[in-house]
């Protein structure tokens, strides 16, 4: 029977349509068209009619309801379904777009990550290298200056070598202390900079993970199934205008009491 109705809807929709060819469309200057399958249209109409009648029947048939009112409700349901389908299509389109955007984001993030890692490593190496070169040059300059100075006073005492050694030890000791202080200061500055870069690196890695996750979801075409909304927004209950209200109320009470007994026993068991 349902198949018969579906067929009739399809026939009716077909009657309302007109036939044309691709060539005829091209002659009219139309190169691209949006195609909606007749199955989809008939399914929407069928669902709309079914839902409206179902809602009506669930509420009890109202003999005063006119054909026009039923038609209006069906039309509204059809438009609602159509909007639902449209929004679904929109979601799919957005997912496609997001997928492309995510792909490019992942690429950019990976590049940024590599740049950051490289930057940190370079900074460390440069610091060590510069320190080594600077230290050696300073030591050499100091030794040379001390030797020149002592050479000038060498003729008087004859203890030049001994004094030179002591002086150098003293200067170099002080110099080393000063260097340590400066090095600690510089290392702290460098650590701050590296920490900052590490934090940035961590953030980029996290973003990359999340983006890759979203990309995987988008690639596998997973869209969360939200379910189908009920026609009721709130709990219904027996209508007091029901012609058999009292009888039904008594039946509902009997069913409830039997279930209460069963389920109370069930929970205590």
């Amino acid at each position, binding site marked *: 029977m349902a198949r018969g109705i579906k067929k009739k809807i399809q026939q009716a929709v077909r009657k309302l349509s007109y036939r044309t060819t691709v060539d005829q469309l091209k002659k009219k200057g139309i190169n691209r068209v949006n195609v909606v399958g007749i199955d989809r249209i008939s399914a929407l109409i069928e*669902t709309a009619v*079914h*839902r409206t009648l*179902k809602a009506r029947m*669930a509420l009890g048939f109202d003999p005063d309801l006119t054909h026009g009112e039923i038609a209006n409700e069906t039309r509204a349901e059809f438009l609602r379904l159509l909007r639902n389908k449209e929004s679904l299509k929109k979601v799919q389109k957005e997912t496609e777009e997001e997928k492309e955007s995510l792909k490019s984001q992942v690429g950019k993030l990976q590049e940024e990550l590599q740049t950051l890692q490289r930057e940190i490593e370079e900074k460390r190496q440069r610091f060590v290298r510069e320190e080594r070169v600077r230290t050696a040059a300073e030591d050499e300059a100091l030794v040379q200056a001390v030797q020149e100075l002592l050479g000038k006073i060498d003729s008087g005492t004859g203890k030049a070598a001994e004094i030179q050694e002591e002086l150098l030890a003293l200067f170099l000791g002080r110099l080393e202390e000063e260097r340590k202080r400066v090095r600690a200061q510089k290392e702290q500055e460098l650590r701050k900079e590296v920490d900052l870069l590490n934090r940035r690196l961590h953030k980029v890695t996290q973003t990359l993970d999340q983006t890759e996750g979203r990309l995987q979801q988008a690639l596998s075409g997973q869209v969360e*199934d*939200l*379910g*189908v*909304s*009920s*026609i*009721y*927004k*709130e*709990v*219904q*209950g*027996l*209508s*007091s205008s*029901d012609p*058999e*209200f009292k*009888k*039904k*109320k*008594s*039946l*509902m009470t*009997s*069913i*409830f009491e*039997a*279930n*209460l007994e*069963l*389920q109370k*026993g*069930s929970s205590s*068991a």
Partner: protein
Amino acid sequence: MTDEQMSANPESQAQSGGSDSEKKHGVLYIGVDLGTSRTSISASNGVRETVASAVGYPKDVVAMKLLGKEVLFGDEALQKRLSLNLYKPLEHGVLKSGDGEDSEGNLRAAKDLLKEAIRLAKARKDELVYAVIGAPAQASIHNKKAIIEAARESVDSVMLCSEPFAVAYGLDWLEDVLVIDIGAGTTDLCRMHGTMPEDADQITLNYAGDYLDRELFKAFQEACTGADFTINMVKEIKEKYAYVSGSSETITVHFPVAGKPTPFEVTEVVKNTCKKIIPPIVEALGSLVASFDPEFQERLKGRVLLAGGGSLIRGLDRAIEDEMREKLGSGRVVRIEEPIYGGANGALKIAHDMPEDFWEKLK
């Protein structure tokens, strides 16, 4: 509680705490017909689904990897039964019971089947889900508790009701009605007289779909010499051709004989075998009529509802009427429009009419 309070009361819904506070966007009612052969659901979001009452679990890791699922349902489970431990958890309209692993397996399968049926209703996460399950009239307390426990995992509140009662309620036939619900395992007869049917108002017979399968199997064995066939093949033939009155096109089936498909003409065999369920049904109807208030017996005989998958046998309504006229003097049988969903639709209507505080108390 006043009469007016029986109807909707959104305020108290908003007051319900816990997870309900997240479920403010609607109420989904689900009616479930848990049957031996098929389980059907009908929901207030327009979704209607039916699934064969079969549950299969992969026999081993290889099967699981091949099937890609931990559990299969319905026709898919039946098709892939060779790779599965297959359960049909309902027998003669109730959960199969027994000892040890088999019993546990059936219980687990029944729970999974019910969860699957409710999943098919496509409930939104933000909606309250209230379900009424049409349980077999003769289901034991143990069975009913198992059904309730299984359903509780998937819904906010659940109630059970007698299956034939649900059919009658769905059609607003509440008084002086006899319901014949022919399922696969049992035929349930229920007398409605405006109040909840009691034990004396209900009769359960084993003359139902499975009985016909066995009888047809025997009849084909006699009629189709040398043919090789299974009970599943017989069931398919029954579902396609079963009839009991009026004329039918010639029914020709093909069974293999020594490996070669061979045609057999079985028109009369099908008709005569299917007619076998009529006398016991009418006899049971007679006993329900005879024990009813004599003043209303004639009215009762004139209001017989025929439901369930078995009512799809062509001409059955007329054949029962004829038998009733002969044995009981009169009778009028009305076949419900949607035999597969009659029970589920009725359960849905009960769910809709159930007052809110009743649902709340059973949460």
